[in-house]
């Protein structure tokens, strides 16, 4: 008997690569791309290209450094 699998969640919409890259000060925007434990969503979930995902990662890490986001949620 095969195990039932949930359908994958759709990517988080609302941004294309022409927009400004995510910034560490823009917390409300960053939180859209984090789960409840403040972990960064995968590229599959965010729908970002490689460069935008790297910019998101960098922004989240900068926000963590200055205490705006937790390291572990």
């Amino acid at each position: 008997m095969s195990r039932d699998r949930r359908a994958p969640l759709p990517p988080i919409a609302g941004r294309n690569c022409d927009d400004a890259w995510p910034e560490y000060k823009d917390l409300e925007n960053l939180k859209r791309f984090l789960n409840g434990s403040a972990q960064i969503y995968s590229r599959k979930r965010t729908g970002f290209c490689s460069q935008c995902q790297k910019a998101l990662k960098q922004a989240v890490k900068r926000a963590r450094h200055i205490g705006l986001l937790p390291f572990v949620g």
Partner: protein
Amino acid sequence: MYECMFLLDNTVVREDWKKAKAVISDAVLKHGGNVVTSRRWDERRLAYPIKNKNRATFVLCHLDMAGSKLPELRRELELSERILRYLILAVDEIPATEHELSTAENADGFAVPPPPSDDVVEPEPVINTPESLEDILAEGEMDDRPRGRRSERASAEVAP
């Protein structure tokens, strides 16, 4: 050109806002830099305690200084007790809004709201009190006693 975010200790901010800003500008000027813009970004609760503080005042600055002097500035900021943490990033240009906000803050009549007072992390209560030497010695004597159930020991003593 560098964009810097400083986390200032709220006790310093409560004393005097201008003195608190001077902590940053003095450190930058000491190492041959120039503070182009400086403004209070926010005062908020930290996601985790930094230097035993739960809250901090965030100051956003734009500096103009030589990159060769940056390690010295970083060292000074690390040693400072009034600056909880800092983030220095290289930027191409200063956003136009930053100039306006900075001049608006430096104008007369601008008052910074005092930060709330719940910024100190209370130490966790100590559950295990340290044992005195006598207690440890008494425990050692206990270990020398014959082990086993009391009834067995009693019967062993009585039997012969």
